[in-house]
């Protein structure tokens, strides 16, 4: 429950021809995680399947692009699972290439139509704008004897440079309409000069000419109709293209589905990457598997592979612990907590899996800080109602809601009303000091537990000195507990006590010596750093303990907020009163609920995780076959 699954390092030696088949079997089982470290490079100098992987990547890329245009209706389901040979992959890739060509042509055609539509709209805008200008539009049409006029559009940021460049060629640029990132302009200049020169310059500057219809001046209505007709034609072409694409999509659906299956079955071999090495016809696959699954793995391979193979499994060596993947607890109820833990990091192999501890302490603290029967039940009901949309976080929401409900009964609080239900334990505001001392006691217990977990983790990976003298080790914990005992005795009027004092002094001295010895620096530097770090250990424990005061503070805050809402409500009439009570409760539920969640997460991450787990472990990600029953 608290320890990750025991893992074995697995070496599978087999014939190179069987690699695709074997990878498929491994993926079907879903218990084998490849080990990509470059080992046995001399005995097995080649990395097989490079061409296979290239083909797969190319085909996968095409397939994903095609899906943007031809979505598949149903999720992937694999039935007839079989080995995909390189020839199968070549064939699938070629077919996908042809289909993608059609899709790409569709994209290009759509783009062309969009550009055409934009050009017509620009022309419409330009003509609408010309109507406000007091000029004879016939002057802008066709070639004139001495002057050349070019109405058009150009990207806005090119205009200043283009204007100066045109001036060099004796041309003039007039801006008359700015439209998003384009500007409508008229370029004018001498007829006989720089024909080719101007055309090339305008092309480079992204100028696109507006073709002014000859009848613009005399029959503007007809021109407007003609442009509307052009737009309608473009839309019709657009619809026709969409229909044609849809028909094409329907015609290739079945084959596309087949390609999806081919790619899914080819994927495991590609995912093995450098975990496979080979020497001629002999290959080696290396990876990790849970110890309890090794025999099942061996038996399945025996049954499914055609040729003989050798499977060797061994325990992880001490020097490769950082490479061993950690399989976190897989449980629907704990899954949301595991996700939150992964936000911080993955525990190293051998370290205690904090999921259960995290789940229980999170729910407990949330309930204590947000204890209210009404609010708790609303949260739990919301979690249940939207369980499908919460991406597996429903147990998290429901658990916190139920915990808040339970503490609501303990505090006797219902939608902020105290006294409607008699409290089973205490009404928080009746004795705030008691609440604060409970929170402190919880904090002490939490920190001690976390320190013990840290000591265990250090011992497991063989860091004995660290477990004894390092941060949050045995000596640090002794320092913390002796100080707390001494202070408690002082508060009780019994004096610090010889036992706690001796332990406190002894642990401080031990820490000073250890930190001084551990450093590689001059004596002066060692002394300064050892003193500062020992002092930091002490203050760290104390400040972390005080951090837990917030657990009580928020339970008090919850009641105080409710009192504020009721005070406001009482100053109003009946309708205002109940409106304020409802809205106030919603406000408390949403805002305080969010704040409490963040605060609990903060306590867990900074007061908890940072003490015992580095978070730099590797998550166990076994090869899986997408669409298979095991997936």
């Amino acid at each position, binding site marked *: 429950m608290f320890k990750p699954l025991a893992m074995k390092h697995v070496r599978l030696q087999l014939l190179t021809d069987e690699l695709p088949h074997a990878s498929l079997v491994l993926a079907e089982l879903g218990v084998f995680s490849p080990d990509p470290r470059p080992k046995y490079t001399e005995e097995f100098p080649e990395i097989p399947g490079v061409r296979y992987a290239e083909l797969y*990547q*190319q085909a996968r*890329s*095409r397939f994903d692009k095609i899906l943007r245009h031809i979505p598949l209706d149903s999720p992937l389901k694999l039935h007839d699972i079989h080995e995909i040979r390189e020839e199968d992959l070549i064939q699938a890739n070629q077919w996908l*290439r042809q289909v*993608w*060509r059609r899709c*790409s042509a569709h*994209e*290009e055609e759509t*783009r062309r139509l969009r550009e055409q539509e934009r050009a017509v709209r620009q022309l419409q805008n330009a003509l609408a704008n010309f109507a406000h200008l007091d000029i004879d539009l016939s002057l802008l049409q066709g070639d004139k004897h001495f002057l050349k006029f070019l109405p058009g559009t150009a*990207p806005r*940021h090119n205009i*200043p*440079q*283009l204007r*100066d*460049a*045109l001036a*060099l*060629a004796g*041309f003039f640029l007039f801006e008359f309409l700015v439209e998003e990132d384009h500007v409508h302009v008229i370029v004018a200049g001498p007829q006989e000069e*720089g024909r080719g*020169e*101007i055309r*090339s*310059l305008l*092309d*480079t*500057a*992204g100028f696109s000419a507006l073709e002014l219809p000859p009848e613009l001046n005399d029959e503007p209505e007809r021109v407007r109709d003609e442009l509307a007709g052009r737009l309608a034609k473009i839309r019709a072409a657009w619809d026709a293209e969409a229909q044609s694409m849809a028909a094409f999509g329907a015609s290739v659906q079945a084959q596309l589905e087949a390609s999806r299956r081919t790619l899914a079955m080819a994927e495991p071999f590609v995912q093995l990457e450098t975990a496979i090495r080979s020497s001629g016809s002999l290959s080696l696959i290396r990876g990790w598997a849970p110890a309890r699954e090794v025999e099942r793995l061996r038996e399945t391979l025996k049954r499914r592979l055609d040729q003989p193979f050798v499977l060797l499994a061994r325990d992880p060596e001490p020097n490769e612990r950082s490479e061993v993947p950690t399989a976190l607890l897989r449980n629907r109820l704990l899954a949301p907590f595991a996700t939150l833990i992964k936000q911080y990091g993955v525990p190293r192999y051998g370290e205690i899996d904090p999921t259960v501890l995290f789940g229980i302490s999170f729910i407990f603290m949330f309930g204590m800080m947000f204890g209210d029967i009404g609010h708790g039940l609303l949260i739990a009901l919301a979690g249940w109602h939207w369980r499908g949309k919460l991406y597996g976080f429903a147990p998290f929401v429901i658990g916190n809601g139920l915990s808040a409900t339970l503490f609501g009964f303990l505090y006797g609080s219902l939608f902020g009303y105290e006294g409607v239900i008699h409290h089973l334990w205490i009404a928080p505001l009746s004795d705030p000091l008691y609440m604060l001392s409970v929170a402190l006691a919880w904090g002490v217990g939490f920190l001690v537990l976390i320190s013990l977990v840290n000591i265990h983790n250090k011992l497991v990976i063989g860091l004995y000195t660290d477990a004894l003298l390092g941060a949050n080790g045995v000596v640090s914990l002794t320092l913390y507990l002796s100080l707390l005992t001494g202070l408690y005795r002082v508060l009780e009027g019994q004096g610090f006590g010889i036992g706690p004092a001796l332990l406190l002094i002894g642990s401080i001295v031990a820490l000073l010596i250890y930190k001084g010895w551990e450093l590689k620096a001059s004596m002066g530097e060692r002394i300064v750093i050892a003193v500062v770090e020992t002092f930091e250990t002490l203050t760290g424990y104390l400040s972390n303990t005080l951090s837990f005061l917030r657990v009580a503070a928020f339970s008090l805050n919850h009641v105080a907020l409710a009192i504020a809402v009721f005070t406001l409500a009482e100053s109003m009439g009946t309708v205002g009163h109940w409106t304020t009570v409802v809205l106030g409760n919603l406000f408390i539920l949403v805002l305080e609920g969010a704040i409490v969640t963040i605060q609990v997460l903060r306590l867990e991450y900074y007061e908890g995780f940072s003490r015992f787990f580095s978070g730099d472990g590797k998550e166990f990600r076994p090869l899986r076959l997408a669409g298979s029953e095991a997936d």
Partner: protein
Amino acid sequence: MGGQFHKQTYVKTRVAIMAARLMPEAVRDDLPQGSLEDTGRRFGLQDLLSESLPAASLNRAVERAMIQSLTFDYSVLLRPFTGAERQVLQYWIRKFELFNIKALIRGKINALEDAQIADQLHELPPSITLPHEELLRTDNVLELLRRLEQGAYREIARQARQVYEERNEPFSLDATIDRLYYAGLLKRISATEPQDREGLREVIGTLIDHQNLLWLLRYRFAYGLPAAETFYLMIPRGQSLNHAALLRLVEVSNFADLIEQLPPSLHRWLEGAENTTEVQRRLERRGRDRVARTLKQSPSGVAQALAYLVLREMDLRLLFVIIQGKVLELPEELLRYAGGQPGSAEENWA
């Protein structure tokens, strides 16, 4: 105020320490001499060069090592900066991304195999987010352009489409990419504090001047482009070659007159140059001189950092050229010429 002062002090100290890595002139001049192994040993590349790789793979490996070295310096110098100063440095390093975009577009336009295009791409640090793989896997140039049109490279894609569809000369594409890059860089520089702006503009303005002058010579006298189009392809806001100077220079009709009419700060370096290659080599020296001045004299930490990175890049580029030449067993004379150094047969101005 105090924080700013400490940051400036830290950055300047950092830059001063790192500047010790820059190659003094004598070292640069000695580079073409000696064997490949000597050069490798001298610059910590012996392991790489001792691997018996084919010439092309070796060049790629050396190039990768150079870029890694530069991006390491970059990431160290970037750390203390925030806001506008940070953005200037972050934008500067994007030049490598643009190299790759050029290579991708050219490769796809010329219908090269993916492997051939991939060979021309720089391996970039993770902070640069260009989706190389995705772009490389596009099936043809139109698909690549459609992908680019969707993002920040819309203008580049538009120009590339024109090059592709109208069979234009690809230099308009290069010019567009460079123009957009420098415009973006200058925009970010203008957002910095006044005390930083001057030094930053001095460095970038110098680079813009040199690029403009070289392209001006090529467009006008090699490609025969008209003055108007040449001016349009220039990058605005250089240091010595300002707007008015460019307007004047593009109308000059021959090489010698153009050199004569250059502003004094450029003319001093280029007087007597007879061809574009020679101009390029002299500009390389001028660039080093001016940027090194900013490195030494600018009161701005970020300007010093940028100046260092520019000089470091120049050094690494020179080293790469020399190693490439030695791998190909080119004669020392040619190496000197390729590296733009004095002492080669064509050298008559130093």
